[in-house]
């Protein structure tokens, strides 16, 4: 299986949008390496023709009527969903400039 080294950890951390310090990378190389070495035992299992089980339910996903439920306004008269926002400008979530 894969060799767990600094380059791999950095690459994967980047995919997950995580910034890691050098000592964190060293620690993860070690601990993740150990865990994946243990996981290698799955190679012993004969899985020929076995359908993977990804879901907890057997039934296909149930559908329902697409009915809009108004979430409503919060205590200060703005959309309630904005109440848990870290930063708000008028009726929008505020983020740094991304484009341009």
């Amino acid at each position, binding site marked *: 299986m894969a060799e767990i080294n600094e380059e791999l950890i950095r690459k994967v951390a980047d995919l997950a949008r995580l910034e890691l310090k050098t000592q964190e990378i060293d620690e*993860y190389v070690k601990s993740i390496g150990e865990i994946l070495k*243990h996981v290698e035992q799955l190679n012993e299992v004969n899985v020929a023709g076995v*359908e993977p*089980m990804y879901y907890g339910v057997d039934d296909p996903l149930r559908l329902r009527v697409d009915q809009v439920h108004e979430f409503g306004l919060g205590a200060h008269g703005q959309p309630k969903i904005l109440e*848990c926002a*870290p*930063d708000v400008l008028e009726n929008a979530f505020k*983020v*740094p400039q991304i484009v341009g």
Partner: protein
Amino acid sequence: MKNYKSIREVHDAYNSGETDPLKLTRDFFSNIHASSHNAFITLCETRALKQAEVLTQDLLGKYAKRVPREALPLFGIPLGIKDVLTIDGVRTTAGSKMLDHYIAPYTATAVQKLEDAGSITLGKMNMDEFAMGSSNENSAFGNVVHPTHSDRVPGGSSGGSAAAVAANLCMAALGTDTGGSIRLPASFCGVVGMKPTYGRISRYGQIAFASSLDQIGPMTRSVEDAALLSQVMSGKDTYDSSCSTEAVQDWSRVVFDTAKNPNAKGLRIGVPKEYFIDGINAEVKTAVLGAIEKLKVAGAEVIPISLPHTRYAVSTYYVIALCEASSNLSRFDGVRFGTRPKDAMESKSLDEFYKKVRANFGAEVKRRIILGTFALSSGYYDAYYKKAGQVRRLMRGDFEKAFQKVDVIVSPVSPTTAFKVGEKSKNPLQMYLTDIFTIPASLAGLPSMSVPVGRDQEGLSIGLHLIAPRFQESMLFKAATLAERLAT
């Protein structure tokens, strides 16, 4: 204050006038303020006292001093809610700095059902961050202290819930269980803990860790209370398409009837040889085998079985759960919710912004996100995620085969009793291996529970683990009641 043994006892005390919801709620808050267990992250004192006051007025007024047990089965019962479950207007942190200031705008279906049945919410329970841990040493809000032995871990991730029930800080609590996070702390703290069949209880309002495994469940002082809470919470929910339409039985009735005349005749108990390996603590083995023997003496048939893929449980789980977690935790980007560091707005790019926000995750959470992302990434998906999914199906097949011969499967909950604080926290793999007996039932989506059956020489609790077939909670609760009455 009195240490009530069950919800039934509390209701009797309400009926006799010995106490009332307001007095009991105040007593619990007294205990909580005096405790050093760090079991709660947020207390809902104002909200709870208001709930208790209304219920007390109703008890004395419209209910004429008789608790309406039929209509409101949890009337006036003070509960703790694991902080991974949302309550409208209440701070919900999932044990993480990422949600330190998050006030949830909606209530989890399971919690709503409990409150609609008359319960009082005392507060939000401490837990391992994002439900990732087996010892409650991963909380951003400090460790939870074991209810009786302060040098030991209470187990995790529902450590706060377990400790609080054991230390008389609430009548019962909700935990969540993905690979053992209800059953393990229940065993370590000496309380009853139950994980329902996957799909019994809606996950709406449960902050997701691994969506094909996560389940909410009760942590209680008695099997009857676990049955009652499960019954109230179970049932289909429009807001969770993985929540089953399977009918909910009267499980508290099953427990009540079984307890009235405990008779183990006809019960076929499966004992899997793979769960009694070297490495199990001798006292744990003795206590569990002793409990099985007592059930045998009471008429149960003990049948040796094999679950051949057991040894792959930890590997299978830690690939699948972590892959799912890496996806579920990608929503924490600081845009719509979450803690934004002060300099986040100065970011020159969205990536930089995300990285600054996601620095709020603790070490174990980051480790799991990295592992999960890796196992799903191009070139590794088949070798890890798909392979684990295939082994998972084989493990489920092991159980289906075994349940053709037996009604319930029993084992230890964990190879040891509560271990020392710091003993495994430096070695993630060792920590993961504590879940070896609880994980298989999670992977297969089976109902399972931990019932305390003894203590070791240090006085630490030992739990008996029981597993029943999918949607056979009636069988599970029947067997658990027999264990509680005959095998402790």
